[in-house]
C-alpha cells in the first residue's frame, strides 16, 4: 500500500534515468546507508563486526566482481580467488616497497595489478566459452597460487610464506579497532558498488549483456568483442583484487597464498548463483547467505549437542542440500525473490 510509484511524475530526463526511480527505494537506501555508517559501528559488538560484517562486505565485493564477469558478461570463471590473491599481495608489496604510499592508492594499484593478470588470463575467452572457459580459468587459480608460494620476493622472503598486512593508516588516522576497519571497508564497498551499478546501466553494461546473450549477434551489431570481454575481465578482476586486499588487511591480518584457494573461488561463485547472476543486489544477498548459513548450522548443531565429527559432516550435507534446494525453488537467485516481493508489495492489497 505504501510502496508504489503512483503520483511520482518524472519531469526531467535526469529524473527519469536515476538509479532508484521510486521514492520509497531512495528513502530505504538512504536509511540503510545511514544505519550502516552511523548506527552499526557504535551499537554492534566487536565480534559481530569483525567476524560477520567485515567478511560479509568483503565477500560481497568479490561476488560483485565475479557477477560483473559471469552474470553480466557471461564469462564463467573459477579463478576469482586468484585475482583476490594478486590484489592482496600486490598491495602488500606496494606498501612495503614504496614508503609513504597512501593506503588507498596501494589498494587501487593492487587492483590494477589484478586486472592486468585478469586480462592476460582472460585472453582465451576470445576463443573458448562455457565450461571449457571455466576449466581453463582453473589454470589461473593454480598457477597464481603456485607463483606466490614459490617466488619468495612476493612474500618478502618470509620463511613460512605468510605475510602480515601492514597497519592501515590514512592521513595519520590508524585503523585499529574493528569498528574503524568496518567503516573503511564499508566506504570502499559502497563506492565501488555504486560505480558498478552505474556501469551496468550504461552502454558498457549493455554491451556486456549483449555479449552474454549471444556474442556473435553482438559482434554483428557493432560491439567490439575483444574490447568488451577484456574490459569485463579487467573490471571484474579489479573488484576481486580490491576485495582480496581488504581480505588480507581488514579481515585476516596475516595471510598466506593458500588462503586464496579453489574453495574460496567456489564460495564466491556460490554467492553469485545463490544471490542471482546479473544483479548487483544479488551479490550482497548471496554473500550474506553464504556467510550466515554455516554460522546458523553451527548454532543448531551446538544446540542439539552433537559430537563434532557428526556436526561437521552434517554441516556439509545441509550446506549442499540447501544449495540444491534453492536452485530448484528459485534458479534465478535471491535477488529474483526480492524482486517478486517488491512486485507483490506494489499491488497489495488489490492484486488485480
Amino acid at each position, binding site marked *: 500500500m505504501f510502496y508504489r510509484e503512483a503520483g511520482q511524475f518524472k519531469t526531467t530526463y535526469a529524473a527519469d534515468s536515476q538509479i532508484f526511480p521510486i521514492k520509497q527505494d531512495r528513502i530505504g537506501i538512504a536509511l540503510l546507508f545511514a544505519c550502516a555508517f552511523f548506527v552499526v559501528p557504535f551499537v554492534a559488538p566487536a565480534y559481530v563486526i569483525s567476524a560477520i560484517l567485515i567478511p560479509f562486505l568483503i565477500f560481497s565485493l568479490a561476488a560483485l566482481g565475479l557477477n560483473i564477469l*559471469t552474470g553480466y558478461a557471461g564469462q*564463467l570463471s573459477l579463478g576469482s580467488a586468484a585475482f583476490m590473491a594478486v590484489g592482496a599481495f600486490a598491495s602488500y608489496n606496494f606498501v612495503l616497497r614504496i614508503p609513504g604510499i597512501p593506503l588507498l592508492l596501494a589498494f587501487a594499484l593492487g587492483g590494477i595489478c589484478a586486472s592486468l593478470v585478469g586480462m592476460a588470463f582472460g585472453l*582465451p575467452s576470445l*576463443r*573458448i*566459452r*562455457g*565450461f*571449457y572457459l571455466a*576449466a*581453463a580459468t*582453473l*589454470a589461473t587459480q*593454480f*598457477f597464481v597460487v*603456485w607463483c606466490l*608460494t*614459490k617466488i619468495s620476493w612476493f612474500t618478502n622472503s618470509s620463511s613460512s610464506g605468510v605475510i602480515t598486512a601492514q597497519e592501515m593508516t590514512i592521513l595519520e588516522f590508524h585503523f585499529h579497532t574493528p569498528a574503524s576497519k568496518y567503516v573503511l571497508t564499508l566506504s570502499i564497498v559502497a563506492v565501488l558498488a555504486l560505480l558498478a551499478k552505474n556501469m551496468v546501466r550504461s552502454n558498457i553494461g549493455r554491451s556486456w549483456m549483449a555479449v552474454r546473450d*549471444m556474442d*556473435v*549477434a553482438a559482434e*554483428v551489431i557493432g560491439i567490439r568483442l575483444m574490447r568488451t570481454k577484456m574490459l569485463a575481465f579487467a573490471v571484474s578482476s579489479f573488484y576481486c583484487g580490491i576485495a582480496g586486499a581488504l581480505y588480507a588487511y581488514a579481515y585476516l591480518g596475516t595471510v598466506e597464498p593458500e588462503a586464496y584457494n*579453489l574453495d574460496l573461488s*567456489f564460495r564466491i*561463485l*556460490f554467492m553469485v*548463483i545463490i544471490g542471482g*547472476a546479473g544483479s548487483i543486489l544479488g551479490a550482497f544477498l548471496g554473500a550474506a547467505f553464504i556467510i550466515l548459513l554455516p554460522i546458523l548450522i553451527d548454532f543448531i548443531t551446538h544446540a542439539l549437542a552433537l559430537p563434532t*565429527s*557428526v556436526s561437521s*559432516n*552434517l*554441516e*556439509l*550435507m*545441509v*550446506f*549442499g*542440500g*540447501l*544449495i*540444491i534446494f534453492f*536452485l*530448484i525453488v528459485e*534458479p534465478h537467485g535471491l535477488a529474483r525473490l526480492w524482486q517478486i516481493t517488491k512486485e507483490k508489495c506494489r499491488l497489495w492489497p488489490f492484486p488485480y
Partner: protein
Amino acid sequence: MSFFFEVLIAGLLSGVMYALVALGFVLVYKASGVFNFAQGAMVFFAALTCVGFNEVFGLSLWIAIPLTMLVMVILGMAIEKIVLRRLVNQPEITLFMATIGLSFFIEGLAQLLWGSQPHKLTLPIEDVPIAFLMDQFNMLISQFDVIAACICAILVLVLALLFSKTKIGRALRAVADDHQAALSVGIPLQHIWAVVWAVAGFVSLVAGLLWGARNGVQFSLVYIALKALPVLILGGFTSVPGAIAGGLIIGASEKLAEVYLGPIMGGGIEGWFPYVLALLFLLVRPEGLFGEKIIRRI
C-alpha cells in the same frame, strides 16, 4: 634413455587413471548436458562404501563390490529423481551449481556413514614391478598400473559400443542434443537419465577402487576430479575416445614436465602444468581434440 621411457610409461599409465575419472564426466555430460562436478565425490563415496562393507561388516571384497555397485546405482537414480528431474531445461550453469551442491552433500554423507579416517584398500592385484621388463630393459613398471589400464580399456570399449550400437545409446545422444526435442519425439527422459547416472555411478566405483587401492581411501580422492578437468578440455567434453587420449597426454606430459622442467622451475609444477597445457591447447582447438565442432547460428 630407459629412464625417459620409464617416466613416459608411468605417466601414460597414470593418465589412464585420470581418463577413468574423466570418463564419468563425459558420460553424464554427453547424455544430459550436465557438467557433473560431483563425480569426484561419487568416486570417494564408492570407494569408502566398498571399504566400509569390507571392514565394518566383514564382508569379503567379492560381496562388497556388487553391493557397492547396487548402492551406487541407487544413488545415481536418487540423484536423478530428487535433483535433476526438478531442474529440467534450466541453464547449464544452474545444473553445474546443483552438482557442486551435490558433491558437498555426498562428501558429508559418505563421512557421516563411514567415518572420516583414511582407510587402506587391498585389491587382489599386487603392486609389484613386472619382472620381465625389469630384467630386459631395466625399467620399473608396476603390474598394478598395467592391469588398471586393461580394466579401463575394457570399460571404454563397452561404453563406446553402448553409445554407438544400442537403442539406449541413440536415445542418450538425442537427449544430449536437446532435452525438449528428445522428449517430444517420445524418448523417456527420466529413464535415460536414471540409466546414465547409474552407469556413471558404476564407472566411479571402478575408479574409486583403483584409485583407492593406489592412494588409500581418503578425502583427497575428491580432488582427483579436478585433475580430470584438463583431461576433459583436452579431449573434448563429449568424446569417450577423447577422454582416453586426453588422459594419456596429460598423464605423460605431467610426469615428464615434473621430472625435466620441475628442477628448473622450483618443483611442484604438477599442480598447474596440466591446466596451462590444456589452456594453450584450447587456443588452437577450442573444442578439444575430439569434441564436436560447435556450429553457432544467430
